[in-house]
């Protein structure tokens, strides 16, 4: 089994931390992701990750923990996107784009200031692309708590959320407060994105949010099955990514291991590809 599980994989403390953090964020992302796909809110989800990056870059500058930075960034982003909601169509997309561009501009500034004021190198890479193996084990407990809260909130709003995603008119007629539910969902999306930014870096956290859920929705049209499948895909890809990244230290000529986020994303894209091909074949027959 050495070819898959390199020596020392199961005894390494960073790997344990990585597995714990990765599992929590993959779980939250898979569940929230299914609703993101249902609502067609991939762009808003991605915009949130970039605002989370701004928070992450800011956290290094101010000196608070990355989790706090990513989460507060994503929450501010959710607020900004939420205030531009409800216009619909192209206007909405443009407004989200403007929020996204201001956030990216600010990250550029924060990262620049980080580089000029401190001697710490690699901050740009860590914030943008993630480095799960260097995460500290003290972040496991807060991550678990925040993740559990996000899942709880999703559970509470699940029914009205599905209804208002499928038909706004029907939801209104049933007495659902559509704007409130939409706002609460943005909040859970912000938390999911903040958590996965910790795992795979803010630029790639979109992958954990969108990928497993998109693949799952291709395979089944039942919500409960889609949730289960998304969870399996998300957690599976994350574990595979961690193992492969650990192994890659031995593969590369200069012993420069490839990043975890790279493997997670490739695994997710492969799963999506297989599900897409499978589902289009199935429909044609």
């Amino acid at each position, binding site marked *: 089994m050495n070819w898959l599980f390199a020596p020392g994989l199961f005894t390494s403390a960073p790997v344990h931390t990585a597995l714990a953090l990765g599992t929590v964020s993959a779980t939250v992302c898979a569940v929230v992701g299914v609703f993101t*796909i249902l609502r*067609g*809110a*991939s*762009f808003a*989800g*991605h915009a949130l990750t*970039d605002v989370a990056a701004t928070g992450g870059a800011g956290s290094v500058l101010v000196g608070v923990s990355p989790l706090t930075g990513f989460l507060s960034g994503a929450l501010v982003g959710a607020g900004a996107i939420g205030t531009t909601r409800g216009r619909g*169509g*192209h206007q909405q*997309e*443009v407004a*989200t*784009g*403007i929020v*996204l*561009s*201001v956030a*990216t*501009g*600010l*990250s*550029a*500034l924060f*990262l*620049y200031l980080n*580089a000029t004021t401190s001697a710490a190198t*690699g901050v*740009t*890479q860590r914030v*943008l*692309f993630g480095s799960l193996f260097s995460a500290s084990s003290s972040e496991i407990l807060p991550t678990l708590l925040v993740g559990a809260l996000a899942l709880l909130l999703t559970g509470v709003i699940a029914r009205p959320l599905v209804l208002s995603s499928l038909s706004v008119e029907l939801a209104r007629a049933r007495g659902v407060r559509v704007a409130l539910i939409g706002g609460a969902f943005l909040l859970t999306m912000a938390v999911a994105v903040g958590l996965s930014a910790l795992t795979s*870096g803010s*630029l*790639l956290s*979109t*992958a954990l949010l*969108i*990928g497993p859920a*998109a693949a799952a929705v*291709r395979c089944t049209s039942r919500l409960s099955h889609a949730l289960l499948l998304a969870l399996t895909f998300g957690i599976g890809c994350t574990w595979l990514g961690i193992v492969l990244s650990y192994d890659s230290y031995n593969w*590369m000529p*200069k012993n*420069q*291991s*490839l*990043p975890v*986020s*790279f493997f*997670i*994303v*490739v695994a*997710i*894209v492969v799963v*999506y590809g297989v599900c*897409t091909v499978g589902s*289009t074949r199935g429909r044609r027959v």
Partner: protein
Amino acid sequence: MINAWQVGTLAALVAGVVGFVVVLRGDVFAAHAIPNGAFAGAAGASLLGLSPLLGLGVFSLVAALLLSALRRYGQRDTSTALVLVLTLAIGAALISQSPQIASSTYALLFGEILGASSSSVLPLLVLALVCIAAVLVRWRAFVLSAVTPDLALARGIRQGRLDAGFLIVVALATTLTVPVVGALLVFSLMVGPPAAARLLVTSPGRALVTATTLSLTVLWSALVAAYWTNWPVGFFVAVGSATIYLLARLITARR
């Protein structure tokens, strides 16, 4: 600095014209995803010792083609998000392999005046002309299919091919603008000024001219500001674009 000025002006002209089509089609996400493919290309080219411009061009074209293929099978947003993360992940893997690239990551993502001055003007000029010509040739089709899709269909405009052509033009425009404002901020130049122009002016032709003027204004002032403060160009471009958009909203809200 003169070189940066020339490249920057070309980039702003192209971003204004192509960005107008981006806003017209409401495809902001694609304009954000394709430049990220360009980022991976530039990283790969410097790993192999090739010209970064070549890497930028090839990878953004590949990203555009992949995107238009995926969109035939799935939701527009979902396919875009997946292409975005895939190309970014390849970029991340490439920069992890070489400390030299890692140190230039920042310039690639957020733009630097030096990045602009190191690329030659002539190939960029050709690219810019091709981009603008492509948009002008298909102008009627773009406007028609954005404003009244049914009429465009009746006129025999093929949506799939138009979409692919649009993504390729975005890829070319990306190659031009990434060295100046950086991969992550190309789209802010493509979205802010054209969106403001569309709010202010109703006629498509005049809005196109307004969009180009506004994006030139944003880029020129960003270059000056970056030159004086030494802060990244991308930051000023993003703030400038957002300011212009907000001003346009305020003006139209008052009417």
